[in-house]
């Protein structure tokens, strides 16, 4: 990143800090969420019921269309060639044989690619979402091992794949840094996240640590991870005059339209991105070079292009989670109270992305400590840009933090849950803000009772034949986020049908289902009368499916649009209505119309209001307020993760035999789809704990296992029945009383497994994944 960018980030960070202290001092009533969402009190509607997915039937029939499944006339199929050096120049590039191959329509390289701007780097402006900001086939320079150097279009995929194999490239390699140790030796820089420094100091933590009567101090390491959504990254593009039509697999359609527009010099409304179904995202389905290359090739060829990356291609050009080295040190008094909490370390990053895996995020708000020191340093590698992957920061940060807590509990001969409860903070430990809602103790209490935590033995004390059995526990935590940009349009017909339009996403989280439930309750209509339209950049709002924030972002946008609808309806209702004279805040949706909240007898149906006003429809659109609530309160979800493992004493094989997640995520909108989100996170966490690692050659920066055969993810046989439960205590300051549930499930799992492995074997593994060789 340039010095100018650093300076801009610093200014932004300082302004944000000033705003934060002003917002913290403002009265609650000025805040979004200062007045609880009336829907929190609704207990007899759809909200909270285990409704099956609204898109279930099309998915099980195989007729839901994903990005590569839009047949277009005169379609061409793309294949890519990737660089095999980390840095340097293309010396020779022979495309003659490919151009002469049967069915080939176009071979695109830096020699003939159209002139394009680099992708605007993610988070550098409101709608910027590029995974890197490098030139794309603009010259002969190579920036990472795996960068696309040629694209072939052909009449069929088989012809394109064959022609791509005929392209010969020679490189002049230049000195590159692909070894983490070497990168650290070159010096590190302090990490910044969302414009703010990750460094935090409160008191002299090192001195307090040295003086504490009890302490642990250890180093933990986590490898690279890949999202590995089963749907390969794919895009189908067509130029329609000066408009670019994009069928994408995207977590961010509005960002995509703006960012692609920036690349090609188009206004955002000249780029139409839709993404009705996404075959898994986990942070990986943003803007990477393949969408740009497909659009460029479609422009040159004058034909539609379908580009689906190979599995290897996904590893080559889509980044994943980066490597971390973390130190956690805790100093405690004899009663377990923390004197010092130190969480520092180094992550690898490329020069062309913005995410220094912020592993200290969970530590900011997890425990009270008299002193604290947090820091993330960045070492730079010439590798594919790393990026956001499910719970960036928390997923690997909780592994280190919650392992260290367990180590301290062992050292002090205390129950690890008791140790955690002794350090529960009263207010946010780093910002001082009050908690919006925090039921960590209840989550632990309920989870421990259900799991049978009290039956736990001392390390190495349980054995059945060859199998050593142990249990472990760890805290899960993830913040409530709501990003700016939420907006929604409501269309209400005379027949009481409600359509809500918002450029949001459903990648399987159950967004459309849960939001349809909420909308039905908010408007007082049946779910059959609700249509929730999403995944289209032409709809209102800029709503990313990331940061577990969609539930809140959509919720707040619909609250705003609903308020506008109520205002409009009251105006239309006029003086002849039972609602005459009522203020918008006093009424809500009920029984197919509006009613006074505290006197439902004062009611008029939508049909009646619209008929009297001689209207067939009412259409309103509104934007959500800025998310100031996240500065005013400390807003976080939590969970208590309980794990039982069986470790083979002979082979070191680890089997997870039981897992229970007890969550505090506010009100659960749909227990069926939320349970799937929790379990899904936990299962990805089991992968993180036991098997997942994107291996790369430190000599060349090349990923060595770009395949689902060699990058192991949990399969059916690895996944036991996973129990999930929740407090269901509504957060009074969020829409619907809910906090997002998409990412918290992966947090804490690594430590819960590692702590269980220690309880089973007496061996402390601080290096993920916990493969059997580490236990022999």
């Amino acid at each position, binding site marked *: 990143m340039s010095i100018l960018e650093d300076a801009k980030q610093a200014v932004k960070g300082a302004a944000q800090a000033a705003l934060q202290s002003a917002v913290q001092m403002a009265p609650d009533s000025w805040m979004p969420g200062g007045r609880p969402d009336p829907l929190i009190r609704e207990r007899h509607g759809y909200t909270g019921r285990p409704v099956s997915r609204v898109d279930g039937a099309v998915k099980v029939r195989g007729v839901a269309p994903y990005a590569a499944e839009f047949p277009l006339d005169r379609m061409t199929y793309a294949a890519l060639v990737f660089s095999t050096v980390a840095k340097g120049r293309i010396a020779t590039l022979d495309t003659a044989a490919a151009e002469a191959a049967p069915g080939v329509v176009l071979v695109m390289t830096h020699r003939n690619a159209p002139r394009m701007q680099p992708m605007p780097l993610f988070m550098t402006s409101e709608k910027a979402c590029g995974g890197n900001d490098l030139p794309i086939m603009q010259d002969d320079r190579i920036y990472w091992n795996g960068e696309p150097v040629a694209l072939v279009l052909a009449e*069929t995929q088989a012809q394109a794949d064959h022609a791509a194999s005929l392209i010969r490239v020679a490189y002049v390699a230049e000195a590159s840094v692909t070894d983490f140790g070497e990168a650290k030796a070159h010096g590190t820089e302090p990490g910044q996240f969302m414009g703010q420094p990750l460094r935090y100091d409160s008191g002299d933590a090192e001195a307090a640590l040295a003086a504490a009567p009890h302490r642990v101090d250890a180093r933990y390491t986590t490898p690279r991870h890949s999202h590995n959504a089963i749907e390969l990254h794919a895009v189908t593009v067509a130029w329609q005059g000066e408009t670019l039509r994009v069928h994408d697999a995207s977590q961010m359609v509005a960002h995509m339209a703006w960012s692609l527009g920036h690349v090609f010099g188009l206004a955002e409304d000249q780029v139409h991105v839709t993404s009705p*179904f996404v075959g898994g995202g986990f942070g990986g389905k943003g803007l990477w070079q393949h969408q740009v290359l497909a659009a460029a090739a479609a422009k040159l060829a004058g034909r539609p292009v379908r580009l689906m990356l190979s599995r290897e291609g996904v590893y080559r050009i889509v980044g994943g989670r980066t490597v971390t080295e973390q130190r956690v040190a805790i100093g405690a008094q004899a009663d377990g109270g923390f004197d010092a909490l130190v969480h520092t370390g180094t992550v690898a990053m490329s020069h062309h992305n913005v995410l220094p895996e912020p592993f200290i995020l969970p530590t900011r708000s997890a425990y009270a400590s008299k002193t604290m020191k947090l820091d993330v340093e960045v070492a730079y590698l010439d590798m594919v840009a790393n990026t956001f992957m499910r719970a960036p920061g928390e997923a690997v940060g909780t592994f280190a933090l919650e392992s260290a807590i367990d180590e301290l509990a062992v050292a002090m001969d205390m129950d690890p849950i008791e140790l955690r409860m002794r350090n529960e903070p009263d207010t946010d430990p780093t910002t001082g803000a009050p908690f919006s809602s925090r039921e960590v103790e209840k989550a632990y209490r309920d989870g421990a009772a259900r799991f049978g935590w009290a039956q736990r033995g001392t390390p190495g004390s349980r054995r059945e034949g060859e199998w050593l059995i142990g249990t472990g526990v760890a805290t899960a935590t993830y913040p409530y986020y709501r990003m700016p940009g939420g907006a929604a349009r409501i269309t209400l017909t005379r027949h009481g049908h409600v359509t809500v339009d918002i450029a949001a996403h459903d990648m399987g989280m159950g967004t459309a289902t849960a939001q349809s439930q909420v909308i039905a309750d908010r408007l007082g209509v049946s779910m059959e009368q609700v249509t929730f339209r999403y995944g289209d950049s032409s709809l209102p709002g800029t709503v990313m499916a990331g940061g577990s924030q969609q539930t809140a972002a959509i919720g707040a946008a619909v609250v705003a649009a609903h308020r506008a609808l109520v205002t409009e309806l009251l105006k239309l209702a006029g003086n002849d209505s039972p609602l005459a004279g009522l203020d918008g805040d006093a009424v809500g949706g009920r029984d197919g119309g509006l009613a006074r909240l505290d006197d439902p007898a004062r009611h008029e149906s939508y049909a009646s209001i619209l008929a009297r006003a001689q209207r067939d429809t009412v259409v309103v659109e509104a934007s959500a307020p800025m998310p100031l609530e996240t500065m005013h309160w400390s807003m976080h979800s939590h969970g208590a993760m309980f794990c039982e493992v069986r470790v083979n004493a002979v082979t070191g094989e680890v089997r997870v035999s039981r897992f229970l997640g007890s969550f505090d995520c506010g009100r659960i909108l749909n227990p069926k789809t939320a349970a799937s989100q929790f379990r899904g996170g936990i299962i990805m966490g089991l992968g993180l704990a036991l098997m997942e690692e994107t291996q790369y050659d430190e000599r060349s920066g090349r990923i060595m296992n770009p395949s689902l055969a060699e990058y192991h993810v949990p399969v059916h*046989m690895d996944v036991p029945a996973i129990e999930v439960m929740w407090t269901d205590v509504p957060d009074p300051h969020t829409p619907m009383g809910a906090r997002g549930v998409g990412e918290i499930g992966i947090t804490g799992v690594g430590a819960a497994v590692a702590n269980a492995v220690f309880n089973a074997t007496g061996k402390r593994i601080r290096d993920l994944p916990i493969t059997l060789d580490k236990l022999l």
Partner: protein
Amino acid sequence: MPLTVNGATVPLPDDPRVSLLDLLRDTLHLSGTKIGCNQGACGACTVLVDGERIVSCLALAVQYDGRAVTTIEGIADGETLHPLQAAFIEHDGFQCGYCTPGQICSAIGMAAELGRGMPSHVTGDLAATVVLDADELRERMSGNLCRCGAHNGIVAAILDVYGPAKVDQEVAA
């Protein structure tokens, strides 16, 4: 005997390199059969050939002359979902839905294997009748990856339809 897909006769491709998967998706536009790795590692492209499950990405289309292919689009009985499709919805055996067609086709093929008495790696007594408990099911379905983590729901859905109480009559039918 020509190649049939869901009962309809389909011409074989001229290009012998075309996989059965690409024939289904690109030529026939039967895109319910998914592509997740194109190397037989994920199971998303599972289809049934004369009732047996195969990964269609590792099958050349021209090899299937005379065979009957059933894809996810051919599993339901018109408007009526196959019991397994309905069970997947009921038990939330998917999130994104991308591995789902492969899971469903694979489970149907697996039930038939069970009906033929085929043992698996976890079968204890090779002489006894195999009972589809959760471990047998997990072992036999481990070739179908799911990244959303819907494993519990998938297992519940399959047991609901093919579990011990039901497996005999279902497979015999």
